């Protein structure tokens, strides 16, 4: 009974009179107050995480019955094989990819760094671009790199995520972005140490 009241109170679903009566009761009962506070903090924490990135929820969207999931897996395997074939022949580069060739290492690049008071945002050059992310990295660890689009009035959409990336040096991590696949707008790259609770580093740029 208490839990239902707690849920309704935190969700703002009680009438004013009901809410006040419940407030009177938990002010008198600090154990109950702590349960309500836990619920408030869980809700607020979820809202904060959701506003920062949709990544945590992406894997949970559209739960599928297992047969459908199996069919999707088969299609995914076929699609992956098809993609690998295209990728190897250089016909259709991935939106976000690891740096693998010498040509990529010496090609067009953009540097992203967290600089206080920097004027304006970096602009992504045309074509396929090597992005040098400058920060403090631990070369022996894996990092996750996500490319997010900032949607006007709609929040943030994760477009692509790379897992298991190694830094190229203690101060640089590099990835390739295929700018041709991006609409003009604002984006950010989010770098997170895998299997760690450390906050992600966010680097913003603009696709003209």
């Amino acid at each position, binding site marked *: 009974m208490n839990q239902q009241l707690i849920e309704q109170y935190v969700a703002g679903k009680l009438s004013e009179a009901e809410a006040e009566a419940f407030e009177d009761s938990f002010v008198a009962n600090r154990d*109950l107050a702590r349960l309500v506070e836990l619920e408030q903090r869980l809700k607020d924490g979820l809202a904060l995480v959701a506003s920062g990135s949709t990544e945590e929820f992406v894997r949970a969207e559209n*739960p599928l019955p297992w047969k459908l999931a199996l069919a999707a897996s088969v299609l995914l395997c076929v699609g992956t094989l098809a993609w690998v074939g295209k990728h190897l022949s250089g016909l259709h580069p991935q939106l976000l990819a690891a740096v693998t060739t010498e040509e990529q290492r010496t090609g067009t690049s953009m540097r992203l760094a967290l600089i206080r008071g920097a004027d304006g945002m970096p602009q992504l050059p045309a074509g396929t671009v090597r992005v040098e992310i400058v920060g403090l990295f631990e070369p022996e660890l894996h990092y996750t790199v996500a490319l997010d689009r900032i949607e006007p009035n709609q929040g943030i959409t994760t477009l692509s995520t790379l897992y298991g990336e190694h830094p190229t040096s203690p101060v640089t991590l590099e990835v390739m972005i295929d700018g041709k696949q991006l609409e003009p707008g604002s984006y950010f790259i989010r770098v997170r140490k895998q299997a760690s609770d450390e906050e992600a580093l966010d680097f913003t740029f603009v696709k003209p």
Partner: protein
Amino acid sequence: MDFVPGGELTRRIREGDASAEAELIRQFEPGLRVLLRRRTGGDHGLLQDLVQETLLIVIQRLRGAGIEEPEKLAAFAAQTARNLAIASLRKTERQKTDIDSAATERNADTARGVEGLAEDFEAAMAVRALLRELPQSRDSLMLKRFYLEDHDKEVICQEMQLSEAAFNQALSRARRRFRQILEERGFAKRDLLNQGP
């Protein structure tokens, strides 16, 4: 469950018993913080100020004139907090037309909001850890629908083909784990986890 003997506390505070004032603060502070958190729109500095002000008013009242129904001391404290929150809201509305006052307030807020930002950060980190640990992605989607999109339980259960018992069980498991994560990381010792005597 705590039982606050309002009449007894009232009498002892009127007689100048400092330990009774400390007891009143210990008993009422968690609930007042929850009540005011809901009514201060995420302004942690204001929340803390109003909690302190409420406790001060209640203690001063008990030291002086007392209250008519001492057994309803908690209700009196809650109503005092609500009144202060309303007064604060009105003051903020008035100040929206006064640019200088608003600027002064903003500067003050920056300093006093630091503790609140830390609380937000703690909660967000715990939630991230929780989402990573959830046994099924279905649970994460369920939390999103319930807490962020405010869908009713019945609707979520229907959409996700869950029984209400299974839903409640998953929700309860998530809450328990969220609390454990906060405990394991030593978060929020001051409030949520401070069980006290």
